[in-house]
């Protein structure tokens, strides 16, 4: 029977192809070694595991337009993508994936990352570096009375908004441009009550909170008052009354004066003498006196510019401002500075300096990015998911095998062999198409194990009916397959259609589910109809005079 030969040949070929697709090969991946994880070459089944199974971070970034609108989003995003990619490459993760999705989003996938929050910060940091001269004219002192007056007039609203426990305050404060960078909400929350209580009710609501610092342009605000001052400064009229051509910038660090922590705020020239675009290199260093520093080198043009500008300002103080925060205390300019300089990071650890050097090297982001979505799963949870998913899979297969063998005996056995082939084919399809196996994907696989035998059940039941009608084994099998076919096709089509739509509209792990569902249904159709039929055909040709069928 040549037809049978072709059938067997096709099945054997598919099995061989599946085995080849699933054959363990050498890959570089993270392996657990002792307490930690390390990269090593291992031989394993080439099934790509999703971030939820191997652990890692999925990060979606989009352009932050809360401060200013961006005209050509797509172009800005392309430029941002380059910067993000450079930063991630330097960050040192095996197989990072950085890509643009649509016109408004950058997706960063970092498998097996240990410190997701750090990566998030590195990616998101604008790294916009500016050098600005602090104000020498005591301009702030001159306008303070006027500012006090405005605060007093508008004070009602501001004070109400600043009342402790009022939730509207948080959103209002975070809308302040430039002055406020989201920091640590724990600290903010704890100062809430104090600041309201400590707020003087009499003269100078603002000036009483601001003390003059140690050099021109430097002012000190007690850490507990920072929020209050921020809310006062956010009043539009106050913004308007600030000295023209000058801007206020908070320091990134606090200082201890006496027992109390203070946060310096600087009034600086709005025009930067130079920005980070001329930067060619940056590296972290540890200085015994100044603590952690980042040393940077400017290119020739930047160096020339820097020299002339600093030459003009000898004796002045220069604030190094990163993303609108003053880094360290502004140093006094002793003489004209050339191509080299350093950013003092005070007591921060070397890792912060490394990250800063990294983002400075990679360049600043052309547009501010904000995090639209983060998912990260620890490596151990991923491993746990795989183990549990595999357990569920094995138990499901055993139960289904038990039912099929117990109920349909010999025919059930054929179905079970087909089921084994089915699992193999499905995994091979996933490996072959480079599809990603996710936790919901495993669920889909387990589910389709239960559904895969449905087609066999339909066929076997039909064969039983045909046998009951007194037909021969041969005709019963033939007609059983024939009659059950339409129902099987119908049920598969509806499930596949559902899976296709789910694939189109799902994201990440859910897509994995849709893929396994579709692959599973197709493989199960083939196994239930084609493979089992072939088995029957082999059996029928082997045993010439078939009288009974164990079904």
């Amino acid at each position, binding site marked *: 029977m040549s037809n049978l030969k072709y059938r067997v040949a096709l099945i054997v070929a598919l099995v061989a192809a599946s085995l080849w697709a699933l054959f363990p090969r050498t890959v570089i991946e993270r392996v657990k070694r002792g307490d930690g994880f390390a990269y090593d070459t291992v031989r394993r089944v080439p099934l790509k595991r999703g971030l939820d199974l191997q652990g890692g971070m999925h990060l*979606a970034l*989009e352009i932050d337009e*809360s401060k200013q609108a961006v005209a050509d989003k797509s172009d800005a995003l392309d430029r941002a993508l380059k910067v993000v990619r450079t930063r991630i490459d330097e960050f040192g993760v095996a197989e990072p994936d950085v890509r643009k999705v649509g016109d408004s989003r950058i997706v960063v996938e970092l498998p097996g990352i240990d410190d997701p*929050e750090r990566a*998030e910060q590195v990616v998101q940091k604008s790294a916009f570096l500016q050098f600005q001269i602090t104000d020498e004219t005591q301009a702030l002192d001159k306008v303070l009375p006027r500012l006090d007056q405005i605060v007093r007039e508008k004070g009602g609203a501001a004070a109400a908004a600043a009342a402790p426990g009022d939730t509207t305050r948080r959103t209002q404060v*975070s809308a302040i441009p430039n002055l406020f960078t*989201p920091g640590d*909400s*724990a600290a903010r929350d704890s100062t809430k009550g104090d600041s309201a209580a400590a707020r003087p009710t009499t003269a100078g609501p603002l000036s009483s909170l601001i003390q003059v610092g140690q050099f021109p342009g430097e002012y000190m605000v007690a850490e507990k008052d920072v929020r209050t001052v921020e809310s006062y400064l956010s009043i539009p009229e106050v913004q308007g009354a600030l000295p023209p051509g000058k801007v206020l910038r908070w320091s990134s660090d606090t200082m201890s004066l006496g027992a109390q922590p203070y946060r310096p705020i600087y009034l600086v020239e709005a025009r930067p003498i130079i920005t980070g675009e001329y930067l060619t290199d940056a590296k972290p260093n540890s200085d015994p006196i100044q603590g952690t520093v980042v040393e940077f080198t400017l290119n020739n043009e930047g160096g020339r510019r820097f020299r002339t500008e600093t030459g003009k300002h000898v004796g002045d103080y220069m604030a190094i401002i990163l993303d609108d925060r003053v880094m360290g205390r502004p140093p006094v300019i002793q003489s004209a500075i050339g191509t080299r300089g350093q950013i003092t990071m005070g007591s921060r650890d070397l890792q912060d300096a490394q990250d800063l050097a990294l983002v400075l090297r990679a360049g600043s982001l052309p547009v501010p990015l*904000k*995090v*639209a*979505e*983060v*998912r990260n*799963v*620890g490596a*151990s*949870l991923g491993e746990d998911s795989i183990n*549990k*998913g595999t*357990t*569920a899979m094995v*138990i*499901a297969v055993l*139960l*289904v095998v038990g*039912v*099929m063998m117990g*109920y349909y005996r010999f025919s059930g056995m054929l179905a079970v062999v087909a089921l084994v082939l089915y699992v193999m084919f499905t995994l091979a399809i996933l490996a072959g198409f480079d599809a990603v196996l996710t*936790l*919901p994907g495993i*669920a889909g696989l*387990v*589910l389709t194990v*239960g*559904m895969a*035998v449905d087609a066999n*059940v339909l066929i076997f039941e039909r064969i*039983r*009916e045909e046998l009951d009608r007194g037909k021969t084994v041969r005709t019963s099998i033939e007609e059983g397959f024939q009659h059950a076919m*339409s*129902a099987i096709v119908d*049920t598969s*089509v*509806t499930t*596949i*259609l*559902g*899976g296709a*739509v*789910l694939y189109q*509209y*799902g*994201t990440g*792990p*859910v897509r994995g*589910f*849709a893929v396994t*569902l579709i692959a599973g249904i197709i493989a199960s159709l083939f196994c239930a109809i084609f493979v089992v039929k072939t088995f029957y055909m082999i059996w029928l040709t082997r045993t010439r005079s078939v009288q009974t069928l164990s079904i």
Partner: protein
Amino acid sequence: MIRIFHNTTFDFIRWWRQAAIATIAFIVLGLGSFLWSGGVNYSIEFTGGTLVQVAFKQPPDVAELRRVIDAVAPGSEIQQFGTNLEYTIRARLEGAGDIAGSTEGVTGAVRKALDAKYTPDGYVIARREAVGPKVGEELRRGAIIAMVLVSLVTLLYLAIRFEWRFGLAAVLSTAHDVLLTIAFIKLLNIEVSLVVVGAILTLLGYSGNDTIIIFDRVRENLRKTRKESLYDTLNRSINETLPRSVLTHATTLLATLSLLFFAGEVLRPFAAVMTFGVFVATFSSIYVAGPILLYIERKYPRTVTDKSTIASASQAKAEGRSEARSERPAPRPSGRPTQRPATR
């Protein structure tokens, strides 16, 4: 050979009233609870917000943990996740918040608070998800579009596959399954995540399966026997397909149950919804699709032209009819009035 439910003659359709009351009661109860206890429990994927799953080395005191978290992230939900070592902390984003601040804010604040209370070595952040309002809205829209599309596609397929009476009955029974599943999700307060939406979509495809199998048989039997009332044909078809319905659902249930019990906490909502859905699909293909088909046939009986399509086929089999009828004893249960308006 082993046979279950072989040659049964249950009068399934007879119980349609009781079934209808039970199922409508469940749906009303489930959907009604939307009125007095708000919508379903959406995951942060849809609402936007932050989820932090913390695995402790030592079981923490829950009240204490709640206090620690409440201090830094007020209004967040804390739930035990599987064992008493793992907890999830959910801070939902209300209205339009700025995720850049709130993501780092919530995770950072939680981390700091836990560091202070349990030391950095005492716990591990096993999982973290933060979804901005925009992404949340997109996912929500995507889920709704997917639901509508799958419904339409399934409906269209069933409509093309069967003539409209069967198609309508199959679609209504599928809709019933989805409503019942939503009621179930609501009543058990299962968190609706993307994966649970995936389960509902899979059920949309799956729930029609059994109906298709029964209706296929009904169609086949209609061709064979012209004298039998549709009521009897339906019952006979259900009885004939009963073994396969039971077996196909049993194997699928075995799969969903192993997911429910062994696949861990993350997949549990999915497995629960699937298990319920498979169960309901069995029920509805018998008690919902059948009676609805009966109702439609009574209300809109086939015209002569409609009939002729099947009649021509049944004419050919007219000789075999008596034999086909005798194949099944089909005694009418005595409790039911013998004369029912035969639709054909």
